[in-house]
């Protein structure tokens, strides 16, 4: 009755976890747990744990629960039970193996999408509780290898992908050169002090999606935007530190990002189509630095495209013909309320939008965000299998005619691509910028 139906995923071998727990003692675990609980948590943790009436109503909010045949171990409250409740009940007296399991649950069985906060009658923030668990595991040095590597990269280079300082500049110059083949007077302005806008991206864009920088440059150039990119570290708005539980590193990253914008004296930061970076810059990292809202206005790409189209600075030559459907990313929709603007952009750029069900704030998570996809190959199978509902949701949209899934978020984009392949859905996924670049009027 109370057991989990599905056996735990086939023994994952993750060196980050194995090595992490190898040196752990129960005494150290207890000390760190107490440090976090006594020093870093407070009214929220207390109220959430004390208020939860164990009703299970959060379960159906979770794509893991729904996709894994309603296995109670995957319900949001089920994950809290296996991790935080145990830690509290045993007053921190837990074993290294327990910490390993707790890390797997908190970091790979939850995307921190906060859909469950909309389904809990009390508005209990399970994502926050999972972050507390992640924080404890981080301080204990138990972190999945792949995402820890990205965090190390952040620490060493201030970007997520070990992009070296000169490689960054090289890549921008390379994309400028490419784009000048299409628009001869296009520039990617570097270090332009006093520009209106700083355009920032995530590490993977220069690393292996450089065409996105090309496209953005075309859009910004055609719209006549006064913009710049930094030639120094601080250009990367992404943040895996936030997801491993390394808040101090998160603070360093966000400070570097904001200070770069401040140094260039820009009015606003416009960011590419990334959800977690938006969360980090708009909602989480700024708070760590003591800013209730971002010190420099943050504009997500959806919002910016919307502005350019509404103001007529970008005109559509010919709308995208194939019927599209839209995946609402949690971090910019549940986290930023950009769902109607995304639809407005699609109505202007595409011939036909077919809605997924459910949609807007109620859309199912991609199962890649929250750092889950960044935990790497050991968890990939589990991740795609844990989002069968997403596949069904896309398949239903496809039945209604959708051929393209627009996913205005990097994590969602990769996660949905994996789902499309795994479930052989036969649709394509595109960024909103891909569509805009394709349909816009160019000189």
């Amino acid at each position, binding site marked *: 009755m109370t057991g989990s139906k599905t056996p735990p995923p086939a023994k994952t071998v993750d060196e980050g976890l194995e090595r992490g727990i190898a040196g752990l003692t129960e005494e150290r675990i207890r000390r760190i747990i107490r440090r976090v609980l006594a020093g870093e948590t407070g*009214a929220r943790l207390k*109220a959430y744990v004390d*208020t939860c009436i164990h009703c299970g109503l959060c379960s159906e909010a979770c794509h893991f629960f729904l996709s894994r045949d309603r296995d*109670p171990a995957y319900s949001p*409250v089920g994950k809290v039970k296996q991790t935080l409740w145990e830690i509290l009940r045993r007053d921190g007296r837990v074993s290294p193996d327990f910490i390993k399991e707790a890390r797997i649950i908190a970091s790979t069985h939850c995307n921190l999408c906060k859909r469950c906060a909309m389904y809990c009658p009390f508005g209990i923030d399970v994502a926050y509780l999972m972050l507390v668990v992640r924080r404890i595991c981080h301080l204990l040095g138990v972190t999945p290898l792949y995402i820890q590597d990205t965090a190390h990269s952040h620490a060493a280079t201030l970007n997520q992908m070990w992009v070296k300082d000169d490689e960054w500049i090289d890549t921008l110059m390379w994309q400028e050169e490419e784009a000048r083949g299409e628009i001869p007077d296009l520039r990617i302005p570097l270090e332009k002090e006093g520009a209106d806008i700083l355009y920032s991206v995530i590490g993977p864009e220069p690393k292996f999606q450089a065409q996105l920088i090309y496209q953005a440059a075309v859009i910004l150039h055609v719209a006549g935007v006064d913009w710049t990119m930094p030639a120094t570290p601080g250009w990367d708005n992404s943040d895996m530190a936030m997801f491993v539980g390394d808040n101090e590193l998160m603070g360093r990253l966000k400070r570097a990002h904001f200070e770069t914008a401040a140094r260039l004296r820009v009015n606003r930061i416009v960011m590419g189509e990334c959800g977690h970076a938006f969360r980090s810059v708009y909602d989480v990292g700024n708070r760590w630095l003591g800013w209730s809202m971002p010190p420099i206005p943050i504009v997500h790409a959806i919002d910016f495209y919307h502005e350019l189209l509404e103001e007529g600075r970008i005109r559509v030559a010919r709308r995208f013909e194939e019927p599209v459907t839209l995946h609402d990313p949690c971090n910019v929709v549940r*986290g930023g309320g950009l769902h109607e603007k995304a639809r407005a952009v699609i109505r202007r750029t595409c011939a036909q939008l077919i809605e997924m069900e459910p949609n807007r704030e109620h859309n199912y998570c991609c199962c890649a965000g929250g750092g889950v996809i960044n935990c790497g190959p050991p968890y990939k199978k589990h991740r795609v299998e844990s989002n069968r509902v997403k596949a069904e949701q896309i398949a239903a949209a496809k039945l209604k005619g959708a051929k393209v899934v627009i996913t205005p978020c990097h994590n969602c984009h990769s996660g949905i691509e994996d789902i499309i392949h795994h479930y052989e859905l036969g649709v394509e996924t595109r960024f909103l910028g891909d569509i805009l670049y394709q349909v816009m009027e160019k000189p």
Partner: protein
Amino acid sequence: MNELYRLATGPLLWAAFAVFVGGSLYRLLELFLLARRRERFLFTYFSLRYGLRSIAHWVVPFAATNWRRHPALTAVTFAFHLCLLLTPIFLLAHIVLWEEAWNVSWPALPDDWAIGMSFVVIGGCLFFFARRRVVPEVAYVTSASDYGILLLTAAPFVTGVIAYLQWFDVRLFTVLHVLSGEAMLVAVPFTRIRHMLFAPLTRAYMGSEFGAVRHARDW
């Protein structure tokens, strides 16, 4: 039994109300001070407007998406909570005691209604009990304390109904009714029945974050 009745309706009742009111205030104050000490930012983000907006969507039956997904549970839980709060306050027999002790009174429910509402509460407890046994995701997170809370909640109503219907020994069950009611009041600040105190706060906070920062609905 006379002595026990006098004890139960005298000093114990005072004690129960004192613990209920004092304990509840203490819990709220404790939470407030904890927030001030460790998470002062909560006050920065707290928004009365969005907090109330969120609460409004959750205290109206079927106004939130998840209420609509669970029509039976929603009907039961609203009826249960409404009857749980209203019956003791508007029961004639209780008002008579208030009136005789403090010279205060207010309109009462007809006894037939009150008894019906008590059965709704008892039925609700049975429903929740069954849910804990039958629904896997609920069973998975159910612990002994959850059954304890159900028992604490049902007891004053079961004994009250028995006393009203005069089954068994009337005085015994009336005394048990008083004692179990006091136990429930005392339990509010010390068990998860305190969701009665905290739930409006957690809901309002989530509503504030969703409304003012995230520009999204949370229902």
